[in-house]
């Protein structure tokens, strides 16, 4: 059965979209990741314009993070002050990202930028995950990341920065510049690549800010929920690139897949899960990298049909 997507302005098979939503939802529940980093490239693979893929995925991320955020808030695992500062930075980064996205679109480089961004991020994340979990599967001692060994509170340069703020829930007294900068970088990624940015923010909060682990996940979900909501709003207003029909279809099976995945994850061995995820992530990265390197069969393309 075919369905016409009103904003993407294309006809797709409804079961393909439902399948994609379910599969990525299952993976995101299984591995506890947002899934945006898989969904956005997949949508572009099937022919959704990059701007619409990124804009729609931001709305999608709101759905997948809001329930997690509420659950963590109920348990008091959200540092609201830290969350607010991270979100403030996130809004700035995302506004800049939306502007940069349009500039690159008119210059004809947006596809390349998105692909390159994904190759770098998926390559790094997949590589780390593989390095961390493969030895465990092969019954050897896992390699600990160099970062982990340093522990919190070692960054002396960071404590020299002005505008210090007290974050009671995290028991921290640090310069607001650092969380603002982290939030801004994550916001930029949300606007340009349609990811939630948790994979970047969580390590930064632990190793750079030195936040206690129990508030990290809740606080990052708080930032992701508000920043992706703000970005989706901005994308819809400025670029008209949020396809509500596409988002709704992806949501329909996505939320179910995520719940099933979360239940399954309890039954599968952690290391095997991580290796599987690493393989998927690296696979997407390699596919995107090949597309950039292999000489294209058609070197011409139509782009930017806008009258501006």
């Amino acid at each position, binding site marked *: 059965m075919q369905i016409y997507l009103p904003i993407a302005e294309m006809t797709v098979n409804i079961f393909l979209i439902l399948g994609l939503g379910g599969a990525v939802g299952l993976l995101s529940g299984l591995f506890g990741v947002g899934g945006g980093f898989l969904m956005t490239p997949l949508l572009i693979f099937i022919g959704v314009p990059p701007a619409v893929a990124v804009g729609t995925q931001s709305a999608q991320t709101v759905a997948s993070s809001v*329930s997690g955020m509420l659950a963590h808030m109920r348990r008091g695992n959200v540092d609201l002050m830290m969350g607010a500062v991270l979100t403030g930075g996130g809004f700035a980064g995302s506004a800049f990202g939306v502007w940069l996205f349009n500039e690159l679109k008119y210059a004809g480089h947006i596809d390349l930028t998105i692909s390159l961004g994904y190759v770098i991020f998926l390559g790094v994340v997949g590589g780390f995950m593989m390095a961390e979990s493969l030895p465990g599967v092969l019954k050897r001692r896992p390699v600990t990341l160099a970062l982990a060994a340093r522990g919190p509170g070692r960054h002396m340069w960071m404590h020299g920065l002005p505008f210090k703020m007290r974050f009671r829930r995290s028991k921290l007294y640090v310069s607001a510049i650092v969380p603002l900068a982290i939030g801004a970088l994550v916001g930029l990624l949300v606007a340009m690549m349609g990811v939630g940015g948790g994979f970047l923010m969580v390590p930064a909060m632990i190793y750079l800010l030195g936040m206690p682990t129990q508030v990290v996940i809740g606080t990052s979900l708080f930032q992701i929920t508000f920043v992706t909501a703000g970005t989706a709003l901005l994308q819809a207003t400025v670029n008209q690139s949020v396809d509500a029909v596409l988002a709704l279809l992806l949501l329909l099976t996505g939320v179910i897949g995520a719940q099933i995945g979360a239940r399954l994850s309890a039954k599968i061995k952690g290391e095997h899960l991580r290796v599987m995820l690493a393989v998927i992530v690296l696979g997407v990265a390699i596919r995107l990298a090949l597309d950039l390197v292999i000489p294209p069969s058609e070197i011409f393309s139509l782009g930017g049909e806008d009258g501006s």
Partner: protein
Amino acid sequence: MRALLLCLALLAAAPLQAQDAPRVPDVPLVADLSNHLVAITTGFTGTNVLLFGATNGPGDIAVVVRGPTKDEIVRRKGRFGPIWANAAAVRFHDVPSYYRVASSRPLEEFAPQMLLSSRQIGVDTVRMINVDESLPAEEMTAFRKALVRLKTGNNLYDQGISDITMMSNRLFRTELHFPANVPTGTYMVEVYLFREGQITSAEIVPLIISKIGIGAEIYDFAHGRFAFFYGLLSVLLAAGAGWAASAVFRRV
């Protein structure tokens, strides 16, 4: 409406032949479409529109369908180290977003090239204006050819040969295909009757392609003055769905 169209058609043909007045029973050419409105609904996967008509005697028929014009940018990739990235770009002004030719025989068999070019009949004659003079002519030709090739690949340009069926030299019919990605707007279907290398008569039939139904309403909402509220609604919908799903599954 019909009379008006007929007048239009005769006006179009006037420089070449000024004989028939409207309402004369023996008009050289009449043509119409099975459908004057193509509705893009939620289940739209492309459609065919039947064009049919009659002539008052032997002759060749050429049909040209033009979509609304807009600017098109053609980009060419180049190599930067190991990566292929867009390098050069050319903007063409007022290019038909959709262009299709059908004819009873290959065009060059019944019409001189000059006439075809002046009327823009045939994919190679489509006028593509470019203001940038910095590129050499052969480069420009490459970009122009690429535009036609890419448009053809998207099923938006097509030159069908001998796909008009003629019956007893008087009746003719052809199926015009509009794919799923067809741009919306007002289309002009031009029907030409050729005799002895000249246009004997011509008729223009408009065709509207428009989004209809819920998809159209969503599009208008998202692109209109209330785009912000469309965004707000989308976000609230997403947040609500995420929250509802977790609430439901907590009980299961």
